[in-house]
């Protein structure tokens, strides 16, 4: 699995994708940090994180779009699937490779927190819980988008569907207000990433939210494994 993680990371940085993802993430987070913290003279980064949600929804599909689709198209998956490694190891390796790049993106928040130290005292507890929320939510999105990438041979299709799904997830909480059916709006609220992420941003590490994001990761990685299993038999 270590070999696959290393390979994933090197593929991001052998091409421009890794650098572009980092650059876009750092640019927008820097912009929001400047707008909401430095210009507004506030030590709370909550607005930065909330504004970055949309960017995260758009960036993660770029990270994951080629993970499986490109392997299938170039037939390099034959090297992985005929090596003495299990399908779970392959999928986990891909997931962790993408997740580490996403973590590198989020590492910039630590720099912003250090900058804030010069002007005031950031609330470290809230910052840590928010970062945990960002990582868990990002992990869940990565798992969903990896599954989408496993379904197609085209990077573009994988990216477009992933962005669509990401936007839907982003908007799902606002949709609940438009629905008159109570059970449906409750259901949508409970599976809304936004609702669970709000707990973290308020400094609450709610075990339900942690389990929710971990479950999404688990379910979609399991589905990825099943996609490969099915492909072998079809």
């Amino acid at each position, binding site marked *: 699995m270590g070999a696959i993680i290393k390979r994933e990371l090197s593929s991001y940085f052998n091409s421009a994708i890794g650098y572009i993802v980092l650059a876009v993430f750092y640019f927008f987070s820097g912009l929001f940090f400047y707008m909401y913290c430095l210009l507004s003279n506030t030590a709370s980064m909550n607005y930065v994180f909330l504004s970055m949600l949309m960017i995260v929804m758009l960036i993660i599909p770029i990270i994951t779009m080629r993970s499986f689709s490109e392997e299938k198209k*170039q037939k390099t998956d*034959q090297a992985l699937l*005929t090596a*003495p490694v*299990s399908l779970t190891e392959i999928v986990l390796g891909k997931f962790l490779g993408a997740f580490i790049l996403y973590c590198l993106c989020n590492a910039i928040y630590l720099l912003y927190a250090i900058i804030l130290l010069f002007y005031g005292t950031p609330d470290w507890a809230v910052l840590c819980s928010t970062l945990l929320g960002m990582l868990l939510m990002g992990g869940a999105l990565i798992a969903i988008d990896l599954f989408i990438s496993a379904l197609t041979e085209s990077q573009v299709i994988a990216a477009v569907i992933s962005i669509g799904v990401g936007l839907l997830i982003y908007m799902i909480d606002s949709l609940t207000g438009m629905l008159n059916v109570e059970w449906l709006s409750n259901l949508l609220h409970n599976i809304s990433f936004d609702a669970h992420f709000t707990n973290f941003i308020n400094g609450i590490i709610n075990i339900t939210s942690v389990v929710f994001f971990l479950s999404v990761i688990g379910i979609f990685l399991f589905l990825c494994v099943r996609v490969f299993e099915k492909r072998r038999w079809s």
Partner: protein
Amino acid sequence: MIEVQHVTKRYGSVKALDDISFTADSGEVVGLLGPNGAGKSTTMNIITGYLSAGEGTVLIDGVDILEHPKQAKAKIGYLPEIPPLYVDMTVRRYLEFIFDLKKVKLPKKEHIAEVMTIVKISDVESRVIRNLSKGYRQRVGLAAALLGNPPVLILDEPTVGLDPKQIIDIRKLIKSLGKKHTIIFSSHVLSEVSAVCDRIVMINNGRIVADAATDKLSESISGEGILALEVEGAVSTVREAIGSVDGVKRVSKAAGNNYTVEYESGVDVRRGIFNALAKAGCPILMMRSGNLTLEESFLKLTEGGAD
């Protein structure tokens, strides 16, 4: 070493493989021969665990590829038809990745250097695979298959698209590898299979149509041997003399003084014919084997599928 038992594979309603069974013993180079679309790659993909057979089993050194995929795959080095290369990596980095992926226990640097020397790619080790020629890419794929010294090598059309010199190099390499490894080698090029393999398994339309040692293949197909003769003398005397030899099944007259003799497979009738014709006073001007060439055997077996 490799046992393929009653393997059947369907793609939807199409039967790609139909009850295929064959074995490859330790140290044997087996050629999988067949026209395009015959089922060679599917067979190889099933042996290597890339695809699963609908029915039947594949055992690698006694280990079932489906039941214990990790142990079985550790014994296999596979070079698919299109080598699975990450073109953004350098040759060395790619081989290091495959080394780690296969969890090889040998000393990394030395083993990779040794494999690169065997397939003659040491001179391109720091080049990005994207910039390599087809021949080099093929060799990098072969190097990846050889990493970890697996006892079984599965090579799917390893010479496709190479120039004649590269083809000869790869053939030589496979022959030399055959001393240490069990190799299954697929091709639709007859001369290649006959040059490299000890045994040929011929596949057509997903079925095995012949399985024999390379030099016995045509005999096993026709079930009888054929001799072409040029003999001086009266036709009736010649026919009578040859016909009297044990093992001869039929004598037919061709143009001039030429005759075709069909005899039972496994019997050597040449001495008998020589003695009988000498006794009859009919000198033999020419005698040669008229057995089907590999090409003729191939066409005879596959003509149904080629139409």
